[in-house]
């Protein structure tokens, strides 16, 4: 059935008694949706509706007042009421019912001059046949509570009832008018309008809800369209055809029915309750039923039935969504922790229980900073929060950061943390996803150690290849020391001692000893198992040091080693020993590739250039045999080697070192022949 077109152009605000609710106090739907809300309370809503329906069947004249009180009751507001447009089609309102704090100020549909101020006003219009006829509303006169979307939902539902009630009352009022107008019909009509049966008849005919009359034997005497539609039976099935409410009731609800019948027999009334009826096709429809006997101790009565399927579906859907959300949050591998604007924990999932050692009930309501933030970071946490509220900026928000967290037992551990701020209403909620990265950190650390170990082995092996050169490097000054020592002794033994020559010899000893200790120092760094030490490194100096290590090797093989170092090249940030290892490895590779050449020029070139601003490029180029195309893609693979004694870890280690420094290492062809290895390192930010 298409929705009737709703009238839009009437003044909603005007429905408020003048002075009772200033414009700015009226809260709009969007605002409500931003606020945190209670979950829907369908049970409460049902109870209210049943009470209203019962009241309507009981006394139409007081139904508006009952409605106002119901609003007051379910929304826990301070004042509530119903505004109706004057029936002349005009735009004026009058107030047939007001409850709560405003009630004493209302007399005969007009408001007294002094009224309590409104903090917030929630207003819902209602319609009859698409025409706005009035509004229902609630007012908070203080800020002890604020409306939420659940209030709005219930008010909407009550608005629909108001529309029903309006029609009922209007028909009663109509009758009154008619009575007044047509004297002759008055008596008859009054008789019909005042009797209980007449009122029930009106309700039945209004088809606002399923209504049927019944007797204690189980028969349904009469039923309205709504009820028949609800159970999908036809009019012809009712009455003499023998449609029985007992037959409509599934086995499991019989006992509950008997209880209700017992109540009816004893007190003439019963609590409405939820049950199911069979439809004609055997499926079931959930309903809320309430019943009453026409007269105490009688056999016949009337019952209403509200179809709950729609509502139960909605409830079920809501429950499912909530369950799913909970399940997702609980099954999340990350700890999920939510915090409100005051820093109080408002959510805590299973993983959070495991990660931090606080159970959900224990954690909820605690201060977030006292619970999971180590003492030394709390101040900056509070400061950051304050800064966020002031400026809306949060450098740690909406991205993954690594930080230290606190367990219940006081231990601290590394976590990956992502915080998402959520605005609801004008307040904030912060959801944090926290992952314990102790294990990955450890793994990373182990890997780093293993790599360092391997790098050390590689260094020692490379140095092993250099033993001859190293021995020469050290033995050279040692030989000078020994020789000069002996000659010094000889000069002193002369008669008279030749002191000048002895002094000169001692000078050479000092010089040679200094040379030797410098060499040893250079070597020691390479042999040491160092943990990575990041400093500012002058790459040119590292290249020069490396050359002094391989100098002898190049000489031995008659290799022409040349360098082109860019003066004033920026330094890089990194580990000197590791970078020297890379250059040494590349230089040794180059030496090996040209050493075996017979008639070709044996050249090795080491260059440093400023490739891009902020990037230092180091190249080691040789005129050797070059890289076979078939090896090119495996060059950097671990354990790939073309050397008989190689273990194939040199280049992979070099690459991992360069990459750990934020750079790149690659191989290329050297022109006109040979291979070239290049690496780029980011210059150190000054």
């Amino acid at each position, binding site marked *: 059935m298409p929705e009737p077109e709703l009238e839009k152009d009437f003044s909603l605000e005007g429905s408020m008694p003048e002075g009772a609710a200033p414009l700015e106090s009226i809260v709009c739907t969007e605002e409500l949706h931003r606020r945190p809300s209670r979950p829907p309370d369908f049970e409460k809503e049902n109870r209210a509706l049943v009470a209203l329906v019962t009241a309507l069947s009981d006394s139409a004249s007081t139904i508006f007042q009952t409605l106002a009180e119901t609003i007051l009751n379910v929304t826990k507001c301070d004042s509530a009421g119903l505004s109706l447009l004057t029936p002349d089609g005009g735009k004026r309102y009058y107030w047939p019912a007001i409850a709560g704090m405003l009630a004493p100020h209302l007399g005969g549909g007009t408001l007294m001059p002094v009224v309590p101020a409104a903090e917030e006003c929630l207003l819902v219009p209602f319609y009859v046949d698409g025409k706005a006829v009035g509004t229902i509303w609630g007012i908070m006169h203080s800020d002890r509570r604020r409306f939420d979307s659940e209030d709005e939902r219930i008010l909407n539902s009550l608005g629909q009832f108001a529309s029903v009630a309006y029609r009922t009352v209007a028909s009663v009022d109509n009758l009154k008018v008619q009575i007044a107008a047509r004297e002759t019909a008055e008596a008859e009509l009054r008789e019909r309008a005042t009797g209980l049966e007449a009122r029930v008849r009106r309700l039945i005919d209004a088809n606002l809800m399923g209504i049927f009359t019944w007797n204690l034997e189980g028969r349904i005497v009469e039923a309205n369209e709504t009820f028949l539609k609800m159970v999908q039976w036809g009019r012809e099935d009712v009455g003499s055809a023998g449609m029985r409410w007992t037959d409509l009731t599934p086995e499991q609800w019989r006992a509950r029915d008997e209880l209700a019948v017992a109540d009816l027999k004893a007190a003439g009334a019963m609590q409405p309750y939820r049950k199911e009826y069979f439809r004609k096709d055997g499926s079931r429809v959930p309903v809320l039923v309430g019943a009453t006997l026409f007269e105490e101790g009688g056999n016949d009565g009337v019952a209403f039935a509200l179809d709950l399927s729609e509502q139960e579906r909605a409830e079920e859907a809501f429950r499912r969504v909530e369950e799913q959300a909970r399940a997702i949050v609980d099954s999340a591998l990350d700890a999920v922790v939510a915090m409100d604007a005051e820093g109080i924990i408002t959510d805590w999932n299973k993983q959070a229980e495991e990660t931090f050692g606080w159970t959900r009930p224990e954690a909820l309501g605690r201060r977030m900073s006292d619970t999971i933030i180590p003492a030394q970071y709390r101040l900056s946490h509070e400061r950051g929060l304050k800064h966020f509220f002031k400026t809306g900026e949060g450098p740690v928000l909406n991205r993954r950061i690594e930080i230290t967290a606190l367990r219940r037992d006081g231990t601290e551990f590394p976590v990956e943390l992502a915080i998402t701020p959520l605005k609801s209403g004008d307040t904030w909620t912060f959801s944090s996803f926290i992952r314990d990265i102790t294990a990955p950190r450890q793994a990373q650390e182990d890997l780093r150690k293993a790599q360092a170990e391997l790098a050390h082995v590689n260094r020692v092996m490379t140095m092993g290849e250099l033993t001859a050169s190293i021995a020469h490097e050290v033995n050279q000054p040692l030989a000078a*020391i020994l020789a000069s020592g002996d000659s010094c002794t*000889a000069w002193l033994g002369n008669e008279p001692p030749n002191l000048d020559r002895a002094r000169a010899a001692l000078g050479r000893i000092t010089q*040679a000893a200094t040379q030797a200790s410098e060499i040893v120092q250079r070597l020691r760094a390479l042999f040491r198992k160092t943990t990575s030490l990041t400093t500012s490194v002058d790459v040119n100096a590292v290249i020069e040091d490396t050359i002094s290590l391989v100098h002898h090797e190049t000489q031995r093989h008659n290799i022409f080693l040349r360098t082109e170092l860019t003066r004033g090249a920026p330094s890089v940030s990194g580990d000197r020993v590791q970078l020297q290892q890379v250059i040494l490895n590349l230089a040794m590779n180059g030496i090996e590739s040209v050493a075996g050449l017979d008639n070709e020029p044996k050249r090795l070139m080491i260059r440093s250039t400023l490739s891009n601003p902020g990037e230092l490029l180091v190249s080691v180029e040789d005129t050797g045999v070059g890289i076979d195309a078939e090896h090119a893609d495996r060059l950097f693979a671990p354990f790939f080697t073309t050397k008989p004694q190689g273990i194939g870890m040199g280049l992979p280690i070099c690459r991992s070192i360069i990459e750990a420094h934020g750079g790149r290492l690659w191989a290329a062809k050297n022109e006109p022949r040979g291979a070239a290895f290049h690496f780029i390192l980011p210059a150190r930010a000054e």
Partner: protein
Amino acid sequence: MSDPKSIVFVVDDDPLLRDSVADLLGAAGWTVQTFGSATQFIQSPRPDVSACLVLDVELPDLSGLDLQIELAKSGAGMPIVFLTGRGDIPMSVRAMKAGAVGFLTKPFRKEELFDAIHEALLRDVEVRKERLESEELRKRLGTLTPRERQVLALVVTGLLNKQIAGELGTTEETIKVHRGRVMSKMGAGSLAELVRMAEKLKVSS
């Protein structure tokens, strides 16, 4: 302990070690002359006195071993004491085979160096003496007539005068005269001495 008339040449590219070795040898009384590279050494004139060479194996231009070969080829060979930074057996074998006197690994004791230099200089004296001797013999050999050379060649093979006469188609008497001239021209006191000289000169028929 050292002969000031002989010279020790030191060739090493490391100035510190070169100076130290030169100073040590100088303190011991030797006359020392130093060079920074093989080329420098080859190009400089050398006095005609007994000498030896203290040579670093690892030189930047021409390696010590190559210099050894070069010197031998040019007939200016002299006893060499090699110095090296690393004990490399194949290299030392090669050097010794080519006539090196010593192969010292740095750092070395002065006694090792001195002993090697002594031996080298002694050997140089020997060599020089032999060189002089063979030059003298060659001079004497040059004074023989072709006939006398023929006779010499046959005498040192151990033939009798009669057999030589038969070989050359002349009389025993004539051979006797030739033989006497050969003995006196060569300055040999006995046949045995003449045979030794012929061996040295590699005279053959």
